[in-house]
């Protein structure tokens, strides 16, 4: 009797759970439907085309002469020294920029996450390189980095350090771009950290200071752990933005000197648009895509959701 009853109850419960699950599934699909449809049409579909172009010889000016050439583009690609060089530069930039920029962004977010009178002014200041036109930023940085008369060289001169060529040197160009990029984009990640910081309850801080925790302990044991999901997000998107590096080298060095700042995105742009080799450019995109997918999924594995 007893057992039968509870078995029944169990069944009912399961049935209702199943119904609930099904209902939740329906809701889930309907919630993602608008995004998924739009992404399919305007992102997945074009990318499939790009994928197909990768197997063709396709000059943008000669769409009528598009020609299937199998894996030739890929064979060419794996013999192309410039491809390896660009890949190396891209990874080098990413490996340095991601941790540095994220750390700077977190520091800025912590600096302005307080009740300070001028808080909004500081926030605008940190965010301003993100909104200021790259044209303006490029003029200023090129002039700062000027090998003959730039402000940085004047400063070095003051300390009796010889003039440096910066962007005009194979050894220094990439580091100059890295430095400038961190400065330019940290405000972007700062905003995301700032949003994350708002999600931490004030009560926890209050409780911990009653328990006698100092500010650094609060930072170490409350703030940083609470930002876990946000940090995963920031690291992921910073990585993705870093591997897509384009604007800074395009404006400031155009990949030079001697291809030391050529990135994969620059290579794709040059082949696809300037040289109009859409087929070859697509093949590079596909390989690029696979590499980055591999990196971000390894990251995802590494940082499991909490």
């Amino acid at each position: 009797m007893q057992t039968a009853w509870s078995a029944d109850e169990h069944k009912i419960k399961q049935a209702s759970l199943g119904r609930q699950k099904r209902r939740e599934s329906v809701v889930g699909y309907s919630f993602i439907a608008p995004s998924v449809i739009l992404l399919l049409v305007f992102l997945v579909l074009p990318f499939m085309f790009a994928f197909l172009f990768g197997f063709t010889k396709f000059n943008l000016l000669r769409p009528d002469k598009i020609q299937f050439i199998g894996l030739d583009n890929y064979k060419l690609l794996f013999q192309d020294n410039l491809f390896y060089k660009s890949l190396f530069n891209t990874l080098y930039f990413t490996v340095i920029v991601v941790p540095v920029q994220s750390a700077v962004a977190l520091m800025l977010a912590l600096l302005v996450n307080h009740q300070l009178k001028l808080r909004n002014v500081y926030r605008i200041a940190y965010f301003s390189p993100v909104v200021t036109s790259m044209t303006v930023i490029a003029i200023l940085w090129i002039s700062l980095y000027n090998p003959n008369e730039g402000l940085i060289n004047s400063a070095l001169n003051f300390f009796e350090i010889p003039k440096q060529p910066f962007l005009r040197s194979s050894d220094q160009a990439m580091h100059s771009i890295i430095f400038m990029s961190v400065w330019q984009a940290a405000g972007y990640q700062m905003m995301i950290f700032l949003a994350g910081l708002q999600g931490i309850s004030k009560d926890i801080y209050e409780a911990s200071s009653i328990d006698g925790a100092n500010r650094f302990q609060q930072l170490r044991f409350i703030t940083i752990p609470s930002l876990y999901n946000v940090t995963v997000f920031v690291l992921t998107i910073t990585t993705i933005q870093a591997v897509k590096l384009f604007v800074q080298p395009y404006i400031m060095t155009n990949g030079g000197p001697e291809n030391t700042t050529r990135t994969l995105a620059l290579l794709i742009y040059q082949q696809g648009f300037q040289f109009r080799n859409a087929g070859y450019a697509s093949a590079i995109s596909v390989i690029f895509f696979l590499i980055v997918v591999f990196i971000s999924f390894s990251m995802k594995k590494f940082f499991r959701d909490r």
Partner: protein
Amino acid sequence: MKKGIITAILAAMLITGCSSGGQTNEAGSEGSSGNAGNEVIELNFWRPQAGEAEDNVYVKRIEEFNKAYEGKIKMKMEVITRGNSFAYEDKINAAVASNTLPDVIAMDGPNIANYAASDIIIPLDEHFTEEDMNDFVPSIVQQGTFKEKFYAPGLNESSVVLFYNKKIMDQYGITPPDKMEDAWTWEEWYDVMKTTAKDGVFGTNMINDKGEWMTYAFEQLWISGGTDLVNDEGTKADGFVNSEQGIEAAAFLQKLANEKLFNIDPKPTEFEEGKAATKLGGPWNIPGFKNYPDLEWGITYFPKKAGGALTAPSGSWAVGVSADSEHPKEAAEAVKWLTNKDSSTELAKAISMPASRKSAFESMAEYNELPLRIIKEQVTTVSNARPVTPAYPVLTQKFAEALIDIMVGADVKKSLDNVADIYDEEFKRNFAE
């Protein structure tokens, strides 16, 4: 099998692109262009945006065209943003791929060969008389001709000259030449720079951009030495761009950079502010000089190689008829109108660029005197167009990259060999027949 499927998908996609594009076009022209008969033929014309003065000349000349052909042809101009990028060319690429090119298109000189080789534009030989062809300055004909057919004339020309700061020249007792036979050689120019580069003043000023300037200006150093970047047919760069004379030319630029005779990242107003004794620049710089009343400037010839030919850069935007046009005859009429003597004169008067027709110069007295006389002499006699080759985009980009590398210290021969390799590979892969 697999090949068939993929080709079919691509073809289907391109056709979808084409057909609906066609519809848009017809809808856009209010259904009047497709119909034959006595109706007015509508022509679309794309050109990149320029300054107001230039834009206004086009607007005026098109109004006059529409009046002259009233009841027969009506031309409509769309001004496309260009900015300092290749956006206009990208738009052309997209229009080609979707068959939505307008009837008449403007294109930068070096693109003519590229577009002609891709059958995007059609030859116009039958529409221009011999008299016309002789009236165009030689570089216009050179630039507009691909495989012995003439595709696209320009309204104006351009040139690069050596500007100098008169005060600085006087200070050192230097008199720049004003006769072609006395034009400075590289060594003479080098001596001037060496003398004047003192106290925060550079010997010369030039742009070192990533774009078209490097090929536009410095190909002439190769030509003056008796070689070029590629052979006449445009099929081969090895033995040309990296020839002995070529290496010598590039080494000269490297020497100037090594000795810091010019600022590799100059402020745009360095010469105007008196911080450079000379400047490699063009007529487009002249209107800006008037903002600097302290600046006294003069013009002398583009320096040549000792014992070499006097030469000067040239090139301009040109107009042609697209292969998509349903009214090629009328479109050719429009091109003729836009590049006739009146149009050329009017544009030359409105902006400070030289005209593309010899007859136009005759009606402008200012070109008979210094300083503009120098420009006229260069444009009408010694100018050379850039290489006419369908692989030009690769050539110009790789050449510019190599020159910049050389200026900042890369090995001259290795850099130029690399340009030759890449160009020859590209040509073999994509353009060899």
